C-alpha cells in the first residue's frame, strides 16, 4: 500500500506493507538518524515527532501516518545544533546513540512547557534511555538549554 506523509516538511509517498512500523520505514528510506534499539517501545532511541508530538516510531504503524507530519532530528537541525553545544559543555554526549531521540523529546517539551521544573524535565524524558551518561550531565545540559532561550 502507499502512504502520503510529510517528513521534515517534504511530501513523501512510501510504499509499505500494512504491518510495517514507522521505524523500519524511515530507516529503509534512509532517515538513519532514527536509531533502532530495543524495537519494543522501551528505549526511546527511535523517537520522532508525529504532528509535533514525540512518539516511539517502533510503536506506530506507518499506515497511521497517512496525511500526517513526521519530524526527525534533521527537521529541527538548528535547535539540535544548539542543544548539542550544551550537551558538549556538560560532557553529556558519549556514544551519541540516544541523542537524536532525546533532542526531539527536548524540542517537544519546550513547545509544550517552556519553563519546566526539574521534575517535569525528568518526567518528560522518562522514555529516553541512555546507557552511557547516567543522566545527570544531560539533565543539567537540558536545563541550561531551556533556560537560555
Amino acid at each position, binding site marked *: 500500500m502507499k502512504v502520503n506523509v510529510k517528513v521534515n516538511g517534504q511530501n513523501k509517498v512510501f510504499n509499505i506493507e500494512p504491518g510495517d512500523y514507522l521505524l523500519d520505514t524511515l530507516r529503509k528510506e534512509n532517515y538513519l538518524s532514527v536509531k533502532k534499539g530495543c524495537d519494543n517501545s522501551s528505549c526511546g532511541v527511535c523517537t520522532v515527532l508525529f504532528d509535533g*508530538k514525540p512518539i516511539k516510531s517502533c510503536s506506530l504503524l506507518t499506515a497511521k501516518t497517512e496525511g500526517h507530519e513526521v519530524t526527525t532530528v534533521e527537521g529541527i537541525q538548528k535547535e539540535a545544533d544548539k542543544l548539542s553545544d550544551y550537551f558538549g559543555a556538560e560532557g553529556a554526549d558519549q556514544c551519541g546513540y540516544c541523542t537524536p531521540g532525546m533532542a526531539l523529546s527536548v524540542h517537544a517539551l519546550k513547545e509544550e512547557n517552556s519553563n519546566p521544573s526539574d521534575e517535569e524535565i525528568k518526567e518528560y524524558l522518562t522514555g529516553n534511555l541512555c546507557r552511557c551518561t547516567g543522566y545527570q550531565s544531560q539533565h543539567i545540559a537540558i536545563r541550561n538549554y531551556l533556560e537560555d532561550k
Partner: protein
Amino acid sequence: MKINGYQTVKSLEEAYNLLNENKQNAIVAGGAWMRLSSKVIETAIDLSGLELDQIVETKDAFEIGAMATLRQVEKQEGLKNLYNGVLSKALSKIMGVPIRNVATIGGSIIGKYSFSDVLTPLLVMNVELEFYKKGKISLEDFLVSKDRSKDVLVKVIIKKEEAKAYFHKMQKTGLDFAVVNVAISKKADTFKIAVGARPSLVKFALEAMAFVNDAKEVTEEVILETALIAGKELKFGTNSKASEEYRRNIAMAYIKRGLREVIK
C-alpha cells in the same frame, strides 16, 4: 504481529461490519501493545477518520472518544480536577510521554490488561462504556462479562461526581509494569477499593468495601481491619516481578494509606 490488509473506515457501521466479517479482523487503535503480540490480523481496521479522539465535557460527564490517546486524557484540564485528578496521575505513571502519545483509552480498556494502570483508577470512578451496537454498559459489568462478541467501543463516559480518590502504582522502575496497584475513592460516605496487577485483572475488594461502608466512623482500627479483609478476600499470585505474599502485603499497606488519604 502480522497484518495482511489495512482499511481506514469511513463509518462506525463499516468498522462493525468489517470487524465481524472475519474472526481475524481487528481494530488497531494505537497498535502499541498489539505490536508486541504474535497475532495475525487479516484486515486491520483503522478508526482514525471517525473523529473518535475528542474529549467532550458535558454538564454531567466527560465523554472521551475511544481513540483519544492516554496523553490527551492525562492533560485534559477538567479531568485533572475530577476525583482530585486520580486518572491523570495514574496515566502519568505509564511508560513515558511517547508511548502515551500513541496508546489510546479504547485499546487500554478493550485489552482488559491484567497489569493495567488505566482500569484500576477508572473502576473506582463512575464509568460507562458506549459500544456501537451493544450500547452502554458499566465498566464494572464489562470487566466481569464473558461476552466475546465483537463490537466497536465508541466512547468512555466518566460521570462528574463530588468525590475524592487515591491511586498508587508500586513499580520497580519508572518504565516498569505495576507489581500491584491500588485505587480508592470516597463519594459522600461510600468507599470503593480496587486492586489491580495482582497480577491478574483488577477487582473490587467487595468485602472490605462492605465493612468500611458499614462503619459509623472510619477510625484507624477500621482502616486496619479493612486492609486485612481486602488482603484475605483478594487472590494474589506469584510471577517474575513479585511473590503472592509480597503483593498481598504491599496491597494492604497501600489500602491503609489510601483510606487515610481520602478521609482527610
